[in-house]
């Protein structure tokens, strides 16, 4: 393939990465925004979403679409309830002390990951996509006969990948509506701005925290259910999304929701494009160092407001 079609392919693959990343990072960002805690176990909630999707799809055994839709409902609900339970049992008891929360969620990370290893096993397992037709993409050239469209060999995307992008956009839009247009969102934003004052006005802050923690985990699980027909479910799959979500949330400004989406698109796209043309390890090293530098010199994030 020539450079142009190759770049287009990389961009499309990058868009799929960006869509999933936006969902996962948004979960982390919502939790940080409202509760001011960093959840290190976030990647494991993502992994759990994928594993539950596999369990649901293989138990139902019906048409792949039935299993997939069921997983898309069941996995986020289960993962969200588990996270809310962890919030009540662990985080609430240490009163969300920022440093102890990180230590406790590191513990939670190992508990979830190793329990999955004991039950689900060390193998990677696939989930069948509900539909998966290949769509060939055209490219243009200026030949002897002037401008012409043609279909280069290998330049194609599956309908499922397009669906993933669309689904992520729909979910994020729904989240935005929830946060800005509903009573629940109003309560969450009130708790975010001043939890003591919210408590004084009769908002059950403890319950809001548990729900927000569950919502954050459920968003990660949704991202995982969407990706699992493309990547297989595996007990160690939570590491990369965790690191990338951290990067996105930091670049976008901790707790800033629009910043998170913009950063996810930026990082997801460039990750896709860079890893096509450069060594992925080198790209990761540079990205990690760059993010550390952002935190050192601009702790409010590139697009965040000051004094985050």
């Amino acid at each position: 393939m020539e450079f142009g079609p190759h770049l287009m392919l990389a961009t499309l693959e990058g868009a799929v990465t960006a869509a999933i990343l936006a969902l996962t990072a948004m979960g982390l960002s919502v939790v940080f925004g409202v509760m001011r805690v960093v959840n290190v176990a976030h990647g494991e909630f993502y992994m759990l979403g994928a594993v539950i999707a596999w369990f649901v799809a293989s138990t139902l055994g019906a048409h792949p679409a039935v299993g997939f839709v069921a997983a898309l409902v069941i996995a986020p609900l289960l993962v969200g309830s588990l996270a809310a339970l962890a919030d009540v049992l662990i985080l609430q008891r240490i009163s969300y002390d920022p440093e102890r929360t990180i230590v406790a969620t590191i513990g939670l990370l190992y508990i979830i990951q190793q329990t999955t290893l004991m039950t689900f096993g060390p193998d990677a397992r696939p989930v069948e996509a509900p539909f998966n037709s290949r769509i060939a993409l055209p490219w243009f050239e200026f030949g002897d006969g002037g401008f012409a469209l043609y279909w280069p060999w290998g330049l194609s995307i599956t309908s499922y990948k397009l669906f993933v992008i669309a689904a992520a956009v729909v979910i994020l839009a729904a989240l935005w509506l929830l946060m800005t247009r509903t009573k629940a969102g109003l309560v969450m934003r009130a708790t975010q701005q001043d939890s003591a004052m919210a408590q004084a006005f009769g908002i059950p802050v403890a319950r809001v925290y548990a729900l927000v923690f569950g919502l954050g985990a459920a968003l990660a699980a949704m991202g995982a259910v969407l990706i699992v027909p493309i990547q297989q479910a595996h007990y160690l799959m939570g590491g990369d999304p965790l690191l990338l979500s951290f990067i996105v949330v930091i670049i976008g400004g901790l707790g800033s929701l629009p910043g998170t989406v913009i950063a996810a698109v930026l990082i997801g796209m460039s990750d896709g494009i860079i890893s096509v043309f450069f060594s992925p390890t080198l790209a990761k090293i540079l990205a990690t160092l760059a993010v550390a530098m952002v935190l050192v010199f601009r702790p409010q994030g590139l697009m965040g407001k000051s004094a985050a």
Partner: protein
Amino acid sequence: MTGKDAALHLGVLAVLLAAFFVLPEYHSGSLARIMVLAVYAMGYNLAFGYTGLLSLGHALFFAAGMYGLALSMQIGGWPALPAFLLALGAALAVAGAVGVLALRTRGVGFMIVTLMFAQAGYLTVLYFGAWTRGDEGFALPQEVRNLFGLDVTTPAGRYFAALALFAVVLLALGALVRAPFGRTLIAIRENEARAAMLGYDVQRLKWIAFVVSGVVSGAAGAAYALLFGYAGATFAGVQYSIFPLLYVLLGGAGTTLGPFVGAVFMFYLIDLSSGITTAYMLVAGLALVLLTLFLPQGILGTLRRRALPWLP
């Protein structure tokens, strides 16, 4: 006060010395490993336990020491002693640079920045796989592994080399935290603003503590490579940044013997459970959660608060 401390430390060292002749070979081998890991945790304790710097990236310094020694011996053909000094220099340089940058942040920012630097270090080890052989790692040949004529490939040589390092670090750090410098670090941990107001150069003191902590961790990494003859990327991974935190939390942060106590308990817990299941890190996860919930001061910290207020 100080008499009791010294007696306790020397008593522990005497027991460890005697232990080699009493314990069966399997356990004395484990104890040698535990002492090296305890040195790592003692280094970590200076930053976390005494200065209040919760780093999630100390594996970077452990690995700097480990690869500083292993690569200079493997590729440079250096003898063990200069290689060990080079390892300390490598840890010093890395900790110095990371300290300058990371100490500009505090709290959660500091945790994430150190985590990111360590991740970059881990990826760098993988990137130079031609020399480091990545996750697979490489073994140091037996014939080069001796220090002052002491063959560290024999059980006895390994045990006493580990004990010597452990003793030096325990006594040196024990003295350091009793000295005015150590007292100032505790003041910074308890109330940074007040320490600054009293006229201490808080930023510089934190940097020194961080660098000393990194160098001790690097010494542990170099000793690990020398005594057990192996260097691999696993030791640079997140897990090895979590271990010293776990040891220190379990044993008691800000106590001189806490890191050793924590390392003994955790090592045997993980050793026993890895005999039963491959998911042995489950124990570490449970320990972290339960410690934060029920025993935030660790074993020796709780003991000090309840019964033995003089415990160093």
